[in-house]
């Protein structure tokens, strides 16, 4: 199984402003297609927001997110929806499985929105869930699954449509260290198998240390008259 061929990811001059007082400035980044990156930093620094920019879920106040030839933040609404559905696979911090849907239906939902439907979708969903050891839990709803199983269903939904860009937000937040290690290994092996670019946001040192390329985001700047241009602590790019 191979992903849509992964393209280079380029982030340039990203700035985001929350009201008049808080401004986040992000470091520039160039990531080759198929590369791995872990992003860390203290809470509230804007890691999830940064990941949302890449996923096309949020538009930065200024700056550019470019995936291959596509300026993601300049895309129209419908094109951005398609980009999210087809190019991006996103593993949410709280998994966000659809309530009441079975494991299989959660994966079918992701596939359907990406345009894969019918027998092909069914076969693919079963294949991915099987690869993640969930063949016996296909028809169980999220409520009936353990935390680890829910995490794997979320991963299956994120990768089933063979995304070129796999994004994971704190994938080990709800797992014990042993399970966390397994989850990260699963993410990396799946991304490698797909040839997809993998970006993991985590504040867990064990996860951060497992990656060769690391990006650490600094602290947000807050104050009464913080101008947009006011720089925050310089983010540190490790191993870039």
């Amino acid at each position, binding site marked *: 199984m191979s992903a849509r061929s992964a393209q280079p990811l380029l982030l340039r001059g990203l700035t985001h402003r929350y009201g008049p007082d808080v401004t986040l400035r992000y470091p520039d980044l160039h990531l080759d297609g198929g590369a791995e990156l872990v992003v860390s930093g203290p809470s509230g620094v804007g890691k999830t927001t940064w990941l*949302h920019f890449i*996923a096309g*879920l*949020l538009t930065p106040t200024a700056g550019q997110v470019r995936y291959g030839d596509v300026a993601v933040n300049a895309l129209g*609404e*419908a094109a951005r*929806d*398609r*980009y*999210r*559905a*087809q190019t*991006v696979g*996103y593993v*949410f*911090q*709280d998994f*966000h499985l*659809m*309530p*009441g*849907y079975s494991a299989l*239906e959660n994966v079918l*939902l*992701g596939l*359907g*929105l*990406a345009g894969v*439907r019918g027998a092909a979708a069914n076969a693919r969903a079963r294949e991915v869930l099987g690869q993640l050891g969930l063949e016996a839990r296909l028809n169980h709803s999220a409520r009936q699954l353990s935390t680890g199983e829910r995490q794997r269903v979320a991963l299956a*939904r994120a990768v089933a449509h063979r995304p070129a860009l796999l994004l994971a937000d704190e994938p080990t937040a709800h797992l014990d260290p042993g399970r966390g290690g397994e989850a990260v290994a699963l993410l990396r092996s799946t991304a490698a198998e797909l040839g997809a670019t993998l970006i993991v946001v985590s504040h867990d040192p064990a996860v951060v240390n497992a990656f060769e390329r690391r990006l650490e985001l600094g602290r947000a700047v807050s104050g009464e008259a913080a101008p947009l241009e006011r720089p925050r602590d310089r983010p540190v790019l490790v191993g870039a």
Partner: protein
Amino acid sequence: MTFWIALRNLRTRWLATLITLLAVSLATATALVVPLLSRQVERGAQDAAQVFDLLITAKGSPSQAVLSSLFYLDVPIGNLPYSEYTRLKADPRTLRAVPLGFGDNYHGLPLVGTDPSFFEQRLKPGDPPYFHLSRGRMFGQPFEALLGASAAAQTGLKIGDTFRSAHGLEEHHEEGVEEEEHEATYTVVGLLAATGGPVDRAVVTPIESLWRVHGQLTPESRGVTAVLYTAGRLNDLYSVAQQTSARPLAQAVFPGQVFAQVRGFVLQGQAAYAGLSLLMLLLSALTVWLSVHASGLERARSVALLRALGAGRGTVFGVVLLETALVVLLGLGLGVLFSLGLGGLVGGVLGGRLGFSLPAPTLDPGLLLRVLWLFPLGLLAALPPAVGAARAEPTRNLA
């Protein structure tokens, strides 16, 4: 995909879906079942009475005249003198004057005294006779009897069997009330084919049988309860009706006019019922609205997730609207089926009691329109949350 998602969302909120479905279907059935039944009774009664042109009885309530003489459901007003019958029969404008006499029963089945001209009645000139034998022969002598199809089935009497009638229109079951049985013995000589009308549950005999049983042996002492009258020409029918009603002892009643009057009363009742149905429908619309809005938070999260996974604004708008549309449509469909089923069931029981067959309940567009407005109303209730879903930013409700 929209349909696929909407179905699963409804399944997830199955309890709210079920309650809404029940509210819509019960309100729909409530709004439909009484109009359906009253139309069935109306049509059944008209069908059963359409063979009779003009009914002539003693003066009194026209509806009582129709109910007692055509449907055997009420006490007759009284007897017409025999001379009124002979006068009508001798009138040159008369094609047919069929005498009817009541007053006795056999196990609750009315004995209808008449003469062979009863069996010459037709729906239209040129049509075959409306009443005809399925077995046996026409009565020829007093105390020979023909059994209607239901009467034969109910009593188990066969051709050649004999029975004795009792006085009164109904059988008495009360303790201490003795059945006043007549001495004369009737013999079954024929069975009538089923018509779906009141004659099916009657015992038809020559009117002389009743006169003899009640000691009315001379023409002066005889009476007839009613005359079924047909003139040779339509104009004559109206002139005979007018002249008859002008006489001191008789009245002429067009069954169709009585039905129209009764229908007027029924419609007044139905107007009050329609008001009640409207309230029920509004309540069910409120249930739809509550159901749509009560699931707001849960919906906000699932909509955010759908958007995050790449669903467009149109898709989430469609999902919310389709969920409501499906529930309301299904509720309406179930309500219609329920009302038709209930109409058929109650119609059967009611028909048995009234003594004539009620046709199967049928819906017409006018009746359907009474409940179909619930559909746009339901969609209207779902519109604000659907617009809200379409406008929601995916990251707002994704922690």
